């Protein structure tokens, strides 16, 4: 070990109580950073995953032109027989479910009251693997063998005063512009992260929607993956596959969907909070330990004089005190990261019961995500704050007059 580093390391343990307090401050800051960062990463991740699972899907495959013209001609870009295509899509790595989807706006009545709705029609057998059990408020999920059982969003069911087992009538515009109706049973009631969605959404078997609208096929194929970070890779693979098959399809990844703004907005808000927390912790640690670093210089003025008298140059003194700051940063960072990880595991084991966020009626259990990013940020902060807190005292020490410093030796 270089002599300055050895001297710095020994000096750290000279005043053990003071060093312990400094390490506690640095370590607590790093641990707090891990907890705050881990909570935010988990929150963003949960919002993203819930939104993707309940509403968006990871990928949506449309006939080319649907994204531009679909609003005007919702049935003009139908995908016909999807069985073969679904087989090939499902064979792709990371794909855990793929199924046809049909969406439309219609009216639902309970005999007294009629309200508009937005329907997500899907194949329950194909999406069985990705259904979100946490979203079921009452009844059961849409079943393959019950083509007239629909699920209502919690808000819509409440507005229509419909319960599981009740009947309702769905009205929709057929492809040719006529009206059609279907009697349905309320099989279940669901809740997603978005109250706005739950206030007007119905989930139903795709056969029911096809019958009501008098259309064949689907408007899109929705694809669910086992890992969200694989989305863009799978999208590229599918585009290559379609090109090879000569299929004229376009693909929208979840982050390209207009509805994904709820995820990006949430992420932006939480990331801003995280930034503020980082700044506060940064200042807190620096202000807490700068005094300790100053004391370490002041009480060693005589020694600094001796070192200089023996021929240590100014940069040697600077190196020594910066090495001390760095050692405190490394020790505090490692201890803080270890404590932060332990706390994160403990908190995650219990879970933090969170109230429903604005625009949602869904309560959720938050955890502390341990990611390399949050660990690295916490460690880097411990190191940076300790280093920064040591720079000024180290500079002051290195600029001392040798004779003056020696006179203060006791």
């Amino acid at each position, binding site marked *: 070990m270089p002599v300055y580093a050895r001297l710095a390391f020994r000096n750290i343990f000279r005043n053990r109580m003071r060093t312990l307090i400094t390490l506690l401050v640095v370590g607590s800051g790093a641990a707090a950073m891990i907890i705050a960062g881990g909570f935010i990463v988990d929150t963003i991740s949960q919002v993203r995953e819930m939104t993707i699972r309940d509403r968006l899907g990871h990928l949506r495959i449309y006939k080319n032109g649907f994204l531009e013209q679909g609003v005007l001609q919702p049935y003009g870009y139908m995908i016909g027989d999807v069985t073969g295509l679904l087989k090939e899509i499902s064979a792709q790595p990371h794909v855990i479910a793929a199924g046809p989807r049909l969406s439309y706006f219609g009216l639902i009545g309970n005999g007294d009251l009629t309200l508009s709705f937005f329907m997500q029609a899907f194949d329950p057998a194909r999406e069985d693997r990705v259904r979100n059990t946490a979203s079921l408020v009452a009844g059961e999920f849409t079943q393959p063998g019950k083509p007239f059982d629909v699920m209502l969003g919690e808000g819509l069911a409440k507005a229509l005063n419909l319960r599981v087992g009740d009947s309702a009538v769905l009205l929709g515009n057929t492809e040719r512009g006529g009206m059609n109706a279907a009697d349905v049973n309320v099989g279940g009631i669901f809740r997603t992260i978005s109250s706005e969605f739950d206030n007007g959404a119905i989930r139903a078997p795709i056969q029911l929607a096809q019958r009501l609208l008098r259309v064949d096929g689907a408007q899109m194929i929705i694809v669910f993956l086992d890992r969200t970070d694989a989305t863009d890779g799978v999208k590229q693979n599918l585009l290559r596959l379609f090109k090879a098959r000569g299929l004229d399809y376009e693909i929208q990844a979840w982050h390209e969907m207009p509805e994904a703004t709820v995820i990006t907005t949430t992420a932006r808000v939480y990331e801003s909070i995280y930034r503020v927390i980082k700044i506060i912790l940064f200042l807190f640690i620096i202000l807490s330990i700068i005094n300790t670093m100053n004391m370490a210089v002041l009480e060693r003025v005589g020694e600094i004089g001796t070192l200089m008298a023996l021929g240590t140059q100014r940069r040697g003194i600077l190196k020594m005190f910066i090495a001390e700051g760095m050692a405190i940063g490394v020790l505090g960072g490692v201890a803080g990261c270890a404590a932060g990880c332990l706390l994160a595991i403990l908190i995650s084991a219990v879970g933090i019961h969170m109230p429903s966020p604005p625009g949602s009626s869904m309560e959720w259990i938050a955890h502390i995500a341990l990611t390399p990013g949050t660990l690295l940020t916490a460690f880097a902060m411990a190191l940076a704050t300790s280093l920064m807190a040591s720079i000024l005292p180290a500079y002051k020490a290195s600029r001392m007059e*040798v*004779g003056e410093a020696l006179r203060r030796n006791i």
Partner: protein
Amino acid sequence: MIELSGVSKDYLVGQSKVHAVSDVSFEIAKGEFAAIAGPSGSGKSTLLNLIGGIERPSAGRLLVDGQSIGELTPDQSALMRRAKMGFIFQTFNLLPVFTAYENVEYPLHLLNVPNEERRRRVDALLKEVGMSERADHKPSQLSGGQRQRVAIARALAAQPSVVLADEPTANLDHQTADEIIALMKKLHQDHGVTIIFSTHDPRIIEQANRLIRLDSGRLATA
């Protein structure tokens, strides 16, 4: 080897100027065992600090081996001390977190002396000053006399041409002070190093083969 010509050192204390050393001129040849004597406050320590490049003269010329000390920057001055000078202090000034061995070794680190050579020199010096048995002891575990022996070994580690000792026996009892002066004298003879020390103790002054007397910062006429 050391040449002072009209050297003065003034300090500002508040608004008033204090003349610590005034117009001092003398020469010290290589290999001398010289004492700077005088009462407390006569400027002995300041004069040693000036010779060692620890302080810069306010006026005059001070040459060590032909090099003008007053013109060196703080870092150049540190390099000069590292290569040419050894220091012994009244309060020993050992680094408390280092062992006796590491204290003696420190100046050799500054000179980038290789490991093996470093070990050889430190072992030999600790043996010479009678501290081999306590090489692993920290200064707090040593007596005053033992600390000063370690400090003497440290001062000689870099094989300097001059050792400056500021009242090296002031904090020691008579017997230990005699032992330390005897040791310094022996090392002076064995190593051929120039030793300049300050003292106000008449018994120690007798041991010097050259005496420079100071009174109120000026050379005193005998």
